[in-house]
């Protein structure tokens, strides 16, 4: 019985604290701090240990190739000055079941690596534009990595 009384007291106290605004006082103090900066700093200082600020990866939009007409082309790159970097990019044209087509290329270099992936066009006049997906995995020698993805519909 005593135990039940003790438990109920704890619940009542907790309920009172929640409703009386004691907790909200502490959150009000936090509200005055620059929220955005806290999030920005935390996410980037935590994640980017020992990585220079300009280590980045990027997948460009797929487009109709001007150099090789009749092909869909995409360029992707990884940049990390002073380090060996690598990239693996896949260009996919989704389709039903086994009809998904994709081309994967990878490369590595020092400081910056740029890769171009292409596949033949399939679109015919009168058809809906076709969706192309580009997905890249960017890595650096020191263990940094990132994934990038882009989708675009093309008449190609």
């Amino acid at each position, binding site marked *: 019985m005593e135990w039940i009384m003790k438990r109920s007291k704890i619940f009542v106290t907790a309920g009172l604290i929640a409703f009386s605004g004691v907790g909200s006082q502490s959150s009000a103090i936090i509200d005055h701090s620059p929220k955005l900066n806290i999030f*920005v700093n935390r996410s980037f200082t935590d994640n980017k240990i020992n*990585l220079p600020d300009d280590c980045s990866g990027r*997948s460009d939009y797929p487009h109709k190739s001007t150099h090789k007409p009749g092909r869909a082309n995409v360029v992707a790159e990884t940049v990390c000055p002073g380090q060996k970097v690598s990239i693996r990019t896949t260009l996919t044209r989704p389709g039903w079941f086994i009809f998904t087509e994709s081309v994967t290329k990878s490369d590595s270099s020092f400081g910056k690596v740029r890769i171009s992936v292409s596949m033949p066009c399939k679109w015919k006049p009168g058809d809906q534009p076709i969706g192309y997906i*580009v997905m890249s995995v960017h890595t*650096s020698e020191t263990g*940094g*990595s990132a994934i990038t993805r882009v989708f675009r519909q093309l008449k190609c």
Partner: protein
Amino acid sequence: MPITGWDDTPSDAIAKFDFHNTSLWLRALARVPFFERFAYPIAVKRGLGTIWFPEISESRFEEFLKVGWKVKCGYPSDHELFLQGSKALLTKRPRSFRKPRIAITRLGKELAWTKAIHRANGTQNLLRLESSPFDDFKN
């Protein structure tokens, strides 16, 4: 006949929609298979669609401006590319990449994949705040 915002985007242009800041019913419509296509002309009319044309383009910008598109020249900024997941900073603590669950609509797929990319790169907080390390270069 092409539907504005759904399948009328020229091949050399890049189109993006901001369904975040619109009414609930329009967002809901954009998540209904097949009927999603009718949400896009409304979004364009409401000024939620942005279209980027390359500097040399055969398309007529005026026609797009007339129907409500925000027309820009060149390429989306690094800030926009970061938020959509096509540009990222390398992280030492990547999380395993998990393919998003089944999403049927265009908007649903886009949101799910963007979230999955940011989760893997550890930048979910920035996505939530619509902020990026490239904020200074916002358009």
